[in-house]
């Protein structure tokens, strides 16, 4: 744009020469520029005003059309259910491996109030406080007499409670149908099932969503209308689970432990037949997550999956098996176990002095740390790491509950030689009982990788081969000898030929170091030893028992007897036939007088 200067010198000079007032030129130019600017503004404003007019017109037209659409649609009753139509209330059942119900739905009602329609708020509040002792009367009076038009009172009420509320007879109290999640077996398998709560909530229906456990992982599947309400079948066995929980609870109490966990797994399919973590909770009334204290003090904490612990000597069999697999040793190879074994500033000692040398088989049987560490030195760190990785010890367990993500193992940041040695006897690596179960299943089933699962499988699921059949058989023999001659002598269950390995690990302090008097006692077992069908891992948290004149905490005195009792109870339920030796005939005593 070319702008004319307001005082063009040429014209000013000319004007001066002619005796005219030069200011008039400036004024004239200013006026011209001003008018030019106004014209431009006006042209722009014209366009924009037109746009505004069109926009307003269109907006009004839209409102009119929308009014017409609404007016031409059908009215519905204000109390119709249509508003909740988008809430999918169907949620499929969850059953055990034999189709017995673990989780189902129950028709119930919610209770809400329309305070504006309430006639006697005070009396209603008093009566409600009588029916539901957990409700606060003062609070309700405040809610009912205020400006609120809608108040939730209870999300779920029983038919008896509904009748009682109905008998109050106030028109301001109303019920909405609800479908609630029911766990008919109460605490049974609570940690697997997790729990459910209401998601999107309307007056006439509410969405039931899983909040934990398998309910959460399979939330979309369970709610998917395309599945047609087909129940989700788990690998758990209800009766076995009940027996296991009962035995474990008794064992935990007897051994004065503060917590306990047990995993029973099918070695060929990886199916978890039973998984127990104590203390537990009732999923029908799931407690709130703890806001303070250690997470494992909460009953919500799943010790079998989330509890990653140093599981101690139970790891020794992996070192022995790998050394045999690599051809470094055979069961009768003699290893020097003179102690203490010094490595840098670290010293490795045994629980007892087992002499100068032991065979590999005896090292497992006696549970010698020094001997295992020597085996690990022969194997080397990288091969050890690879082997443990194949057994699934380096990643979170893939079981189908949300808590599985909490099972990520704690590994040494630097897999040094001392780590290699300590890991070989289960220190310096923290895994969950579920990890251990999968790894023992691999040893037990002939040497193939096992992927633990909570869903029922159709047949054996053999993964990658980890060790040869022969090594697997030799390892089982060693484990069997641990029970018959070694540290787990209390583990013998007549007819079921239990094989296993004990593990007692000092609990780490939260700020580093280890407690002297707090241990995690573990018994990792398989039965029957000649052709194992099941693996049972049983862990007691801080057990303590008094026997033969001293306080005992080792797994052989704590976890093993409990595991033996559990096998005694569940093996018949699993359909295993005891292999009974023809025994001596009992003398017949006539009791008739």
């Amino acid at each position: 744009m070319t702008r004319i200067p307001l005082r063009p010198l040429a014209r000013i000079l000319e004007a001066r020469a002619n005796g005219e007032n030069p200011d008039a030129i400036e004024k004239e130019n200013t006026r011209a520029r001003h008018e030019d600017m106004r014209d431009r503004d006006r042209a722009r404003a014209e366009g924009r005003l037109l746009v505004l007019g069109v926009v307003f017109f269109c907006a009004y037209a839209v409102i009119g059309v929308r009014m017409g659409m609404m007016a031409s649609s059908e009215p519905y009753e204000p109390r119709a259910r249509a508003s909740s139509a988008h809430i999918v209330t169907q949620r499929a059942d969850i059953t055990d491996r034999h189709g017995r119900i673990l989780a189902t739905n129950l028709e119930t009602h919610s209770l809400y109030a329309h305070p504006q329609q309430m006639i006697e708020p005070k009396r209603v509040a008093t009566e409600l406080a009588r029916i539901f002792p957990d409700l606060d009367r003062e609070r309700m009076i405040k809610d009912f007499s205020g400006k609120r038009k809608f108040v939730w009172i209870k999300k779920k009420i029983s038919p008896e409670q509904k009748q009682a509320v109905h008998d109050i007879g106030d028109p301001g109290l109303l019920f909405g149908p609800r479908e609630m999640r029911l766990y008919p077996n109460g605490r049974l398998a609570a940690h697997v099932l997790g729990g459910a709560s209401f998601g999107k909530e309307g007056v006439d229906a509410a969405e039931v969503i899983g909040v934990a456990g398998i309910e959460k992982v399979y939330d979309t599947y369970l709610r998917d209308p395309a599945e047609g309400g087909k129940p989700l079948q788990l690998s758990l066995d209800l009766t076995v689970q009940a027996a296991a929980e009962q035995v474990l609870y008794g064992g935990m109490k007897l051994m004065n432990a503060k917590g306990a966990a047990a995993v029973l797994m099918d070695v060929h399919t990886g199916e978890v037949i039973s998984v127990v973590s104590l203390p537990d909770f009732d999923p029908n009334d799931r407690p709130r997550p703890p806001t303070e204290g250690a997470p494992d003090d909460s009953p919500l904490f799943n010790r079998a999956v989330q509890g990653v612990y140093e599981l101690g000597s139970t790891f020794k069999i992996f070192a022995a098996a790998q050394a045999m697999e690599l051809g470094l040793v055979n069961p009768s190879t003699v290893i020097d176990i003179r102690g203490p074994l010094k490595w840098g500033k670290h010293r490795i000692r045994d629980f007892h002095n087992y002499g100068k040398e032991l065979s590999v088989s005896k090292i497992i049987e006696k549970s010698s740390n020094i001997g295992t560490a020597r085996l690990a030195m022969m194997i080397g760190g990288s091969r050890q790491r690879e082997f443990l990785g194949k057994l699934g010890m380096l990643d979170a367990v893939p079981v189908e509950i949300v808590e599985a993500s909490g099972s990520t193992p704690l590994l040494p940041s630097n897999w040094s030689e001392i780590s290699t040695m300590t890991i070989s006897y289960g220190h310096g690596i923290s895994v969950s009982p579920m990890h251990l179960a999968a790894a023992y299943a691999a040893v037990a089933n002939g040497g193939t990788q096992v992927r633990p699962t909570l869903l029922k499988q159709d047949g054996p699921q053999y993964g990658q081969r980890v060790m040869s059949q022969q090594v697997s058989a030799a390892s089982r023999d060693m484990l069997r000898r641990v029970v018959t001659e070694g540290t787990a002598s209390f583990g013998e269950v007549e007819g079921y030929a239990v094989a296993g390995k004990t593990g007692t690990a000092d609990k780490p302090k939260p700020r580093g170091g280890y407690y002297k008097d707090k241990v995690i006692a573990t018994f990792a077992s398989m039965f029957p030893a000649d052709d194992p069908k099941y693996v049972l891992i049983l862990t007691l948290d801080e057990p303590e028992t008094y026997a033969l004149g001293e306080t005992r905490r080792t797994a052989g005195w704590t976890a093993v007897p409990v595991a033996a009792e559990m096998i005694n109870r569940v093996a018949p339920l699993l359909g295993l036939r005891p292999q009974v030796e023809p025994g001596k005939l009992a003398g017949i005593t006539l009791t008739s007088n």
Partner: protein
Amino acid sequence: MTEMVYGAVSVREGEPVLPKWWRTVDKWVLSCILMLFGIGLLLGLAASVPLAEKNGFGAFHYVMRQAVFGGTAMVAMLITSMMSPLMVRRLAVLGFLIAFVALMGLPFLGTDFGKGAVRWYSLGFASIQPSEFLKPGFIVVAAWMMAASQEINGPPGKSFSLILATIIVLLLSLQPDFGQASLILFAWGVMYFVAGAPMVLLAGIAGAVVMAGSFAYNSSEHFARRIDGFLSPDLDPRTQLGYAANAIREGGFFGVGVGEGQVKWSLPDAHTDFIIAVAAEEYGLVLVLCIIALYSVIVVRSMLRLIRERDPFIRLAGTGLAAMFGVQAMINMGVAVRLLPAKGMTLPFVSYGGSSLIAGGIAVGMLLAFTRTRPQGEIDEIFQGRGR
């Protein structure tokens, strides 16, 4: 002649006031406003009966009051529309100052009538809401400032008016009254748009709004749920919106009949925010479309007349007034048909309410005054040879 020269006999300048007013005023808009007011009374007969019953007055107590206020408002509108734009501007600026002081005094002298927001002065027989009177005053002042900024060597009026708008919005938000605050902001925005907001800025603001909206939607679950709830086609039939939607459906094309409607008994705000639902139920789509058409004629016609206007001040002030009037009606009706999220806003001239009626009368009077036919300097242009 001598007397005339020396001023002893008054000289009539131009033609008499009333004939000139009748010749130049926008008779279409005027008749639309009168019709709206009539419809308001008609609906008041239906919608305010439950309120009167609840408060223990005679059935048509509120209709009488509405008629009295409405008469006052019509007189105010006619008087205002007869003034010259200059006169309107002077009085509006004075009125704005008074209303502004009154608004600032609210926290100390105002009352909230138990509704939680301090917006009113109680005068015993009636109450006054200063923000209703502030709106038209603010529009005139802001238009004046923006027009001044379009002069060469004029003051930076656009910035001044923005600062003023911000102060008022803050004051209103403190009450809190976000509805009025957003109206003020909207009116300023429209005026700024017509006064020549740079395109880049407009595009930037639009982009920023979209970005902020999607960011809020993605990052805040609460916000997302609100939006989803608004977008979802289903509606709990026991909310106000549910009742309103149902009333519109019940009414159908020709309504359920005069006095037969039910929604007014259920909705506490049937006589103010949801009066369009009462109209739809009792008189059907026909009356609702009439009301929409009336508002649309008032707004669109005023804007088309303002296109021809050459004076920047008149153009801006008229635009602001028309836009505010139109958008208020639009929000009210848009909420009832669920095109907009719920927000309490009265339907100008139709809803019950003294302050809003009189202030609305004054505002529309100003609009009429600004849209009157007046010479637009065509003769000057012909004389100066600049005609286009």
